[in-house]
C-alpha cells in the first residue's frame, strides 16, 4: 500500500518534472548570479585575512546556549551522587626517640578520625581536627584491634572495665615533647583531597605594620 502511494506520488513528480526542471533552471541562474557577487565578497574577506566561511553569530550563540545546557546537565548528575566534599588533614606525629613510637604507642592512622583517643605527640597547631573530640578513652589503643564502640571503654584486649576502675594514665594531660635546640619544628602534613585550602591571610596587625613600613 505504501509502495502504491509512493508510486502514485512518483508518477505525479514525473509529470511535474518539466515544471521542476524549469524552476531549477531559474534557481541555477539566480544562484550563479548571487554567487558571482558573493565570490568577490569572499575574495575580499580572504585577502583581509578573515575566515571566508566564518560561523554566523547566531550559530555561535546557539552553540553556546546548547553547550551550556548540556554542561549543566552533566554537572547536576554527579553532584547528586557524590559525597559532600571534605578536607582531610593528616597530623603527623613525632616521638622523642627519633620518630619511632614508644612501645605500646602507635601513630595515628592518616585519614581516620580519632574517635576520642588522646592526641599523642605535638598538639594541634591550628588545623581543624576531624572527627569527634577526645571523650576520655584510654590513651593507648591496641594497634590493629577494632576500636571500642562509643561510650563503652575497654581495657587492652577487649576487657570492659567499670567506671571507677580507670586505666593507668587515664585523665592525665598529654605529654608535650620539648623541641630540641637546632631541630626544626615538625610541620604537620596536610593532604587536600578535593579542593585546595584557601591561603590563610595574615593577621590584621601584621598588615597594618607592613603598610606602615611601605609608607616609610
Amino acid at each position, binding site marked *: 500500500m505504501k509502495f502504491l502511494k509512493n508510486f502514485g506520488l*512518483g508518477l505525479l513528480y*514525473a509529470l511535474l518534472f518539466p515544471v521542476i526542471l524549469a524552476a*531549477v533552471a531559474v534557481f541555477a541562474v539566480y*544562484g550563479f548570479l548571487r554567487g558571482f557577487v558573493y565570490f568577490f565578497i569572499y575574495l575580499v574577506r580572504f585577502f583581509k585575512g578573515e575566515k571566508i566561511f566564518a560561523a554566523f553569530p547566531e550559530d555561535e550563540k546557539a552553540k553556546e*546556549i546548547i553547550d551550556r545546557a548540556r554542561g549543566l546537565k552533566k554537572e547536576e548528575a554527579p553532584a547528586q551522587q557524590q559525597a559532600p566534599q571534605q578536607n582531610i588533614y593528616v597530623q603527623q606525629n613525632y616521638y622523642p626517640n627519633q620518630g619511632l613510637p614508644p612501645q605500646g604507642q602507635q601513630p595515628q592512622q592518616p585519614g581516620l578520625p580519632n574517635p576520642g583517643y588522646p592526641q599523642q605527640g605535638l598538639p594541634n597547631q591550628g588545623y581543624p581536627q576531624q572527627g569527634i573530640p577526645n571523650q576520655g578513652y584510654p590513651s593507648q589503643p591496641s594497634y590493629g584491634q577494632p576500636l571500642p564502640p562509643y561510650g563503652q571503654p575497654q581495657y587492652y584486649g577487649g576487657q570492659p572495665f567499670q567506671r571507677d576502675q580507670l586505666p593507668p594514665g587515664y585523665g592525665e594531660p598529654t605529654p608535650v615533647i620539648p623541641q630540641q635546640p637546632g631541630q626544626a619544628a615538625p610541620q604537620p602534613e596536610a593532604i587536600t583531597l578535593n579542593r585546595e585550602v584557601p591561603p590563610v591571610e595574615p593577621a590584621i596587625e601584621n598588615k597594618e605594620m607592613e603598610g606602615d613600613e611601605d609608607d616609610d
Partner: protein
Amino acid sequence: MIDALLSFLISLEMNDNDRRALLILVIILLILLFIIGLIGMGIRWIIMRQADKADDLMYEVTVAHVINNPRDYRKMASKKNFRLFFQKSLIPLGVIALGVLIWVIYSAIVDGWNRNIFEEFLDLFFLWHYEDPENYVQIFGMTFLAKWPAPFEDHPVFHVEHLASYIVVPIVVGGSLAYLYQAQGYMVRALVCVKRSNEVFRKSLKGYNANTLDPNSVPYDPNLHSANDSNKL
C-alpha cells in the same frame, strides 16, 4: 460523451493483427508507466533528501531560541542555504571552468573557434535514421514507432582531431548536471525553509478546549466543599 465512446468502441473492427498490436501497445504503455513512476520516485527521494538538509541547517538556532520569529528564520535560512549552495557548487563550477579552459586553449592552438564540439562528440555514438517511414506503424489511425531505426545513419568513429571535444564535452556536461543537482537542492531547501518558518512559530489551538478543566489541578478546599454540602442540605 460516454455514449459516443461506447459507440466508437463497438464500431471498431479489429482483425487478429490489430488485437496483437493493441495488446503489445498496452503492455509497453504499462512498462513505460512503471518506469516513469520509478523515475518519479527517484526524483521525489532526491527532493526529500534535500529537504532534510534544510532542517539540519536551522535546527540548532531554532532549538536554542536564538531566532524567535518567521521573518528572522527566513533571513537566516536564506543566508545559510545560499552559503551551503555556494560551497557545494564550487566543485561543479570548477569542473565546468576547467572544461572551458581546455576548450579555449585547444581552440586557440588549432584556431577552431567555430567548431561545434558537441557535434564532434557525437562521433562516439550510434545515430539512427529516424526519418525512414518503414520504422513506423499505423494503429487506429495513429503513427507509432515500431522498431529501432535501421540502418544506422552513423557508426561510432574516433577522430584524433576531435580529441579535445571528447574531453571537454563530458567535463562540461557532467559539471553542468552536478551544478543543476545543487541548484535543485538550493531550490528545495529554500522552499522547505519558507514552509518551516510558518510552521515552527505557529501557535496552534488545534485540539485545545478552553472549557476543559483538569480535575487534578483544582485544589480541594474542605471549607468550601462542606459549605456547599450544607447549602445542598
